[in-house]
């Protein structure tokens, strides 16, 4: 879900322009880390959590648009450093993983309900 949120933020800012390249938006990516349960070596149970968010080290592209109100003296604006194709791939992968996890939870929940009703 965090990953889908970052993709949404990145895509929302994809077309914004800036006067200074330092101010330009750079895409945000979550860093995943495994959270191991107690005695994980024996049980093998692990969850996942977002450890931190990083901004990608990518330079914004300079575009020559003298009519843009944000253009600098030379007529250039800096577009946000967001690769929309990359974000779309990211979104697909994230939503598939999300669906997968929901499916697992639904199945396990159904199994648990049947186990609770054992012997009836």
């Amino acid at each position, binding site marked *: 879900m965090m*990953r889908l949120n970052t993709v949404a933020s990145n895509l929302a800012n994809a077309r914004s322009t800036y006067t200074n390249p330092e101010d330009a938006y750079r895409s945000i990516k979550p860093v*995943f*880390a*495994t959270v191991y349960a107690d*005695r994980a*070596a*024996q*049980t*093998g*149970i*692990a*969850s*996942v959590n977002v450890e931190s968010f990083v901004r990608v080290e990518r330079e914004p592209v300079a575009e020559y648009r003298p009519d843009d109100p944000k253009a600098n003296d030379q007529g250039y604006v800096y577009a946000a450093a967001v690769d929309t194709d990359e974000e779309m791939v990211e979104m697909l*992968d*994230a939503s598939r*993983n999300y669906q*997968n*996890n929901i499916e*697992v*939870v639904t*199945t*396990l929940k159904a*199994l648990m309900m*049947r*186990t609770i009703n*054992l*012997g009836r």
Partner: protein
Amino acid sequence: MSKIADHLGIHQHALNLRSQRNEVLASNIANASTPNFKARDVNFVQELQKHANHGPMRTTSSQHMTDLPSMSGPVQYRMPTAESLDGNTVELHVEQMQFAENVMKYEASLNFLNRKITGLMSAIKGE
């Protein structure tokens, strides 16, 4: 009580192991896009044989080590057919198939247990 446990037979252990394996497989699927995560699985046959013959190993002293990863432990690392670049060895299609299979077999064990309990109940009631 042990007579009832004997009657239920291997299925109670099988159900336990299946549920443990479900948890491991769910962990794998949850970590499908975590870098450097190594997929794991329960060696079901080997674990069930332990129960069939002489029960699980027990720790009789507090100094016995219980949390060591070992080659013959219940949970082992999966050998990936194609490891991804970020060091993650979870292959979603494999995990999904294993999970589906495990859920099916869990239901089978559950059905066996259910039938056995129903049999016991009708014997008790004398119907």
